[in-house]
């Protein structure tokens, strides 16, 4: 199960934090910092997986942004690695060539995208067509 999803830039600024476990605010902050420290030291020759506390982080870097998913140790790494990419492609389509600023100015919409694709720490919908159709419909609503 997904424990949390983080999008951070290289400087460590959080662009999205989605939690599927109950952490208190201090703990969340600590996790954010730890993830940043763990992920940014790795280079392209490293795997996209890192052991992290009793979990693991599956992450992928897109330009200056790190997309990180924290999952259970037994979970399928490549499955979540591609879930990240699928999510990024949806964002890219939704925001027409997404960039970091889109995530800043439309932070409240990013949550909607996440909830369409992931829910309760599980993968909810994987079809880009279906997700985008739903988002388009929601966008047309007042």
């Amino acid at each position, binding site marked *: 199960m997904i424990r949390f999803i983080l999008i951070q830039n290289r400087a460590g600024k*959080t662009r999205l*934090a989605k939690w599927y476990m*109950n952490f*208190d605010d201090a703990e969340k*902050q600590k996790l954010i910092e730890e993830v940043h420290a763990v992920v940014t030291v*790795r280079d392209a*020759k*490293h*795997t*996209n*997986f*890192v*052991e992290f506390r009793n979990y693991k982080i599956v992450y992928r870097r897109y330009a200056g942004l790190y997309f990180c998913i924290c999952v259970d*140790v*037994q979970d*399928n*790494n*490549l*499955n979540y*690695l*591609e*879930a990240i*990419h*699928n999510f990024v492609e949806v964002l890219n*389509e*939704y*925001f*027409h060539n997404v960039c970091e600023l*889109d995530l*800043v*100015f*439309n*932070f*409240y*919409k990013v*949550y*909607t995208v996440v*909830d369409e694709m992931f*829910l*309760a*720490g*599980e*993968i*909810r*919908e*994987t*079809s*880009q*067509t*279906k997700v*985008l159709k*739903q988002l*388009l419909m*929601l*966008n*047309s*609503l*007042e």
Partner: protein
Amino acid sequence: MPAARGDGMRGLAVFISDIRNCKSKEAEIKRINKELANIRSKFKGDKTLDGYQKKKYVCKLLFIFLLGHDIDFGHMEAVNLLSSNKYTEKQIGYLFISVLVNTNSDLIRLIIQSIKNDLTARNPVHVNLALQCIANIGSREMAEAFSTDIPRLLVSGETIDVVKQSAALCLLRLFRIHPDIIPSGEWTNPDHSNSRIIHLLNDQHMGVVTAASSLIEALVKRSPDEYKGCVSLAVSRLSRIVTSSYTDLQDYTYYFVPAPWLSVKLLRLLQNYPPPDDPGVRGRLNECLETILNKAQEPPKSKKVQHSNAKNAVLFEAISLIIHSDSEPNLLVRACNQLGQFLTHRETNLRYLALESMCLLATSEFSHEAVKKHQETVINALKTERDVSVRQRAVDLLYAMCDRSNAEEIVQEMLNYLETADYSIREEMVLKVAILAEKYATDYSWYVDVILNLIRMAGDHVSEEVWYRVIQIVVNREDVQGYAAKTVFEALQAPACHENMVKVGGYILGEFGNLIAGDPRSAPIVQFNLLHSKYHLCSVATRALLLSTYIKFVNLFPEIKGQIQEVFKQDSNIRSSDAELQQRASEYLKLSIVASTDVLATVLEEMPPFPERESSILAILKKKKPGRTVEPIDPNKDTSQASTSSTTERHHHAEPTAHQNGQTDLLVDVLGDMYSSQSQSGAGLMNNAVGHQNNLGGGTAPVDNLSKLSWKNNGILYENDILQIGVKAEYRLNLGRMTLFYGNKSDFSLNGFNPTVAALGDLATRLTVQVKPVESTIVAGAQVQQTINIECLEDFKEYPSLVVTFLYNNTQQKLNLKLPVTINKFFEATDMNGETFFSRWKNLGGPQQETQSIFKAAHPMDSNANGAKLSGFGMQLLKGIDPNPDNFVCAAILHTRNQQIGCLLRLEPNRQAGMYRMTVRASKDTVSKQMCDLLAEHF
């Protein structure tokens, strides 16, 4: 698709731009404060805000919160947005609540009501928002409130697909919190929703299947039998996906791979069951698995990494299922060959995952040999991989593929690697090498060499268990003793040798130094001088061990008695400020003077063999990496390798130095002082011997002292005929450290011993408990200890739970206990004079802050005993403050992580009536109540 940019709230965009343009943190804070003031005035103002404005301001607040600032208003406005009819307003309301409102908020009733309205709304968009909100913040309360609505939405024929998907995962969230929301045991009724839930695997909409399969897996984990109908459904669904061409499942094809995520979920679901009994289903499943393996060999349909990742995600999951089933040799070998190809793939991810999966394959008898073919490649990975986590997996795999045929080579490679290995993995490597060397040793001199090499190269990472173990083995195997003595003697020649080497060397020479004393190069005095040259650089524990070695030398080599006595007599020993050293030096000195040769020979005789038991090192490795450690298999396993002893009498699980003293009976049982007044002389190093069960008598009813321990930190928590659990605890401010002592009173080993400590439910947010694991076996008569670190976050009522399970004489035993952790443990006794006391007492005069209880005395009304209980409870007794000398007044501060809570108490005995009146005032109402509850029963 319309651009997502540009629409929405202008004010918000302007505000975000402003924040981004701030040049400094101060400027940012200033801008935020201005905005907060603005929003606050808008919310407070007379003019009613329209929905758009409300939405905009709530959204700004959310943005400010996400920047890391506290938000203490606006919650009500957000809740108001929930009842809006407009999607955008509702969405912001729900988002604010999901991110910011915690579930014990006062507003939760209102929120639940709004959600309820939306759940029953006709507009599916509203239903969906409500479901997503529950899935995000669902609590027990919500589980109870929606226990009928959500299952109904999930299985109703009228629900649209998008809503069904959310309902499935929403239900999953609530099920995790409150499993009763899906009652079990009604599966015989085919119309029942449980059976309908598994039929969602047949749903036309793949998204629904994707969502539902996560829910179903959770249900299956709870009651596999009840849901076993899902196996054939999952297999047929999988089969349809796997055999489809990528054009069939258009929406769900990802880079030419049909429905990879769903395939993975289905393959995982199947791993909860053994291979299907039904030959048809089983055949179909095997066909799927073969097809997946075949596809891996086909040329890729795309060069994109997404294509290969998605395909391999499915492949790895299929291999996991093949390994889980462990029944199809043909598939296992094919899987192994496939992974073998990945071992040299240019993608680091694949090499890593192949090593990881192969580790599991190595444990299957069908594929163990196939895995061994890749030994070269794996050793090469250990040497060349850049990413430490990949090297780590290579170590794991070498460990898993090790057997008698390749042990020497693998151990040697691991030793080579150890010299340059990253610090983060050294300790684990040491354990692994130690285990392999022991397990596959045919020649014990090789084993001794390996362990001494370990100490030489990575002494700091060699834990006590490792060197205890080498000593146990040397003591138990006569054929290796002379070699061991010679080897440690040589190792000690090194000018700088690790303290662990001194320990092993000291112990072994003390026992077997005589075996090499014939050689003038290692004559008694040479051995003694060599050891003693290290003495002053060693810690107290090691010195104590060396003193024991010396007294053993007195017996082995009477000719150097004089020199040894000189050492005992040195001020730094006989007058050592350390009680342990001083005691040993003086006792050994006396023993060497007064005891006859016969007595010496008897007392200082060679140690008897150690009882045979599972290597404690293995137990540690298992604990270090729960779920990741695989035990290497060995078809010719020979369990009688380590011991020449067949003794079944009770064994003291003391560490070797304790035995070496020849005075285990003097070792102090930490619990001993509670039962006997035996003096604490001869304290051993570890205090872990078991002594005094005999005093307790057998066949008595279990003792559970939970409540007594609320005012004592040390004592027996629980005791029955098999097990005694003792507690020792220390608290400082909001932190505590507790040690539990599990003593096996029976004549049998307790196996699979597993104590679980947890702060459950609400308590988890108030108290953290961190537990060190314990060994899974307690041999007859032995004792193990477990350390628990406790932190009080907030005041609390419940006790943490302690569930102990073990096998006793092949019968599963389970004890449900509670740990004696109560709020008063985090008290700091506070002294104050009368004036301060009364002024504070008055300050705490609010009706919420005081709790009073009038109760009948349950114990004799003894003033001294009462005083002792109150101070044991952690409070400062304030004498001479109350005009009535019979009354007690006390003060303390309760330390939690976030708060300090002052507590004052007054206890007034009424001897005529045999009653007490207890009044507690505390700056927090729950605390005064809880104190009254805790204390009343003790008087």
